[in-house]
């Protein structure tokens, strides 16, 4: 009887541990999802609607300047997690005054790369308008079939060297 009780206790402990581990795994899926964010400082056009791009936009992520975009330029940053915070320093015209804007965006989970059109976003368009998925075109090197080397003597010479 006593043994049975202890058995039960161990099973509960095991079950709880398993649940915790699964919970951690799920959490990692959410907070660890990486995205590449591309910022476009380009004029935005859709259905006769036209938004001009500012002269210059600086993008700061976590206090660090990651991009300085003149009109028509694109910048990028790699990010982790489901929401993306950035600070924009916008200069409308050359030598004009600059204004700061703080932006926090939820990033769709299934997109690896996201293109954000900054002018559209600043003009208050909906995310479905200013956010598009970045589809990478595979480089020629990537398309080329490579010979898989499974030779057992491969790697005999480099033990943990770069």
């Amino acid at each position, binding site marked *: 009887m006593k043994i049975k009780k202890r058995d039960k206790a161990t099973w509960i402990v095991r079950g709880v541990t398993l649940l915790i581990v699964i919970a951690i795994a799920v959490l*990692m899926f959410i907070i*660890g999802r*990486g995205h590449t964010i591309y910022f476009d400082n380009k004029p935005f056009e859709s259905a006769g609607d036209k938004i001009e791009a500012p002269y210059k936009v600086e993008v700061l992520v976590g206090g660090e300047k990651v991009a300085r975009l003149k009109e028509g330029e694109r910048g990028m940053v790699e990010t982790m997690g489901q929401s993306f915070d950035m600070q924009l320093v916008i200069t409308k015209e050359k030598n004009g005054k600059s204004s700061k804007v703080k932006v926090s965006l939820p990033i769709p989970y299934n997109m690896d790369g996201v293109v954000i059109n900054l002018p559209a976003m600043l003009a208050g368009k909906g995310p479905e308008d200013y956010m598009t998925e970045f589809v990478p075109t*595979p480089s020629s090197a990537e398309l080329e079939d490579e010979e898989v080397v499974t030779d057992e003597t491969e790697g005999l*010479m480099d*033990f*943990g060297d770069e």
Partner: protein
Amino acid sequence: MKKTSIRDLVTRFSVPLMFVLICAVCAPISGLSPTYLINEIVTRMGRNAFLILSLLIPIMAGMGLNFSMTLGAMAGEIGLILVCDWQIVGIPGMILAMIISVPISALLGLFCGKVLNMAKGREMITSYIISFFINGIYQLVVLYMMGPIIPIKHGSIKLPRGYGIRNTVSLLSMRQKLDNLIPLNIAGIKIPVATFIVVFILCIVIVRFRKTKLGQDMRAVGQDMEVARDAGIDVERTRIISMILSTVFAGIGMIIYLQNMGNIATYSSHSQIGMFCIAALLVGGASVDKASIGNVFLGIILFHTMFIVAPKAGTVITGDSMIGEYFRVFVSYAVITVALIMYETGKRRAKSREGQMLAQQQEVSDED
């Protein structure tokens, strides 16, 4: 009595001493700056310590050097490949890869433990062959099943033909993320504090583990299987657990190792990992049946100093860069060979001494 203890001491530390000599000779010839050297060794300490520590538990259980720690390394690699494809990055990516690797490692460890229980007395050669065998299975999974059966989305990981993983998988998104989590730089030497903390935790776990009931059982099994069995210890189960623990730790260690390297050589990263981890441990003064945490760290320092210094020194002396490369490979294998020979001769000597004592006792009891 004292004489033998000195002799034992000398034989125990002959390998580290030899290495100190090699390093002392080669280091000045190589012309590498001390800062560079120390930096490299600190990096490699962080990179390899966890992996080498995973070897300690089977030694404790008397199963010798675990050549099949490669199994854990493969499990770690599978975890990393999947995480890479799911685009989980940074530390969370590492943690997720570890969570994935653990059940795979545990299963492989269970298999390994069961096989080794059928091959008592030749665990090492068996575990060595197991690593080759499972490498075949690993290739089956990674080269043929990943793609059609295990979904892999990204073209940067998958081969263009639609199945199989590329020769190298880039880990740029988690490269040195753990090492640089807590940045610390003393006099130009970069110290991967967070990695050391993880290694330290494992050290504590191992020290604590030795004192638990299971740890005690394991040591008893390592001392003498028959005596342990008579004492009511489930020898087979204990040995299997020690293999599972070792494999799981090796898997986690491989993930730490690869986050430092920054990419996976899909088909060769794991193949030599067992070899040089074992060589490093032995260089630190460990033997097939006795190894401590101190051996691990001394081993890393000496072995990797040799590894960095020998090719450079070889190039300076002979003018051929390959000589040094071959030299260090030769030394690694020679160290393992010598350690194995010393272990086997020691075992034989102990056996014959035991036999003599037994004979004496019998004579005494006959007289009674």
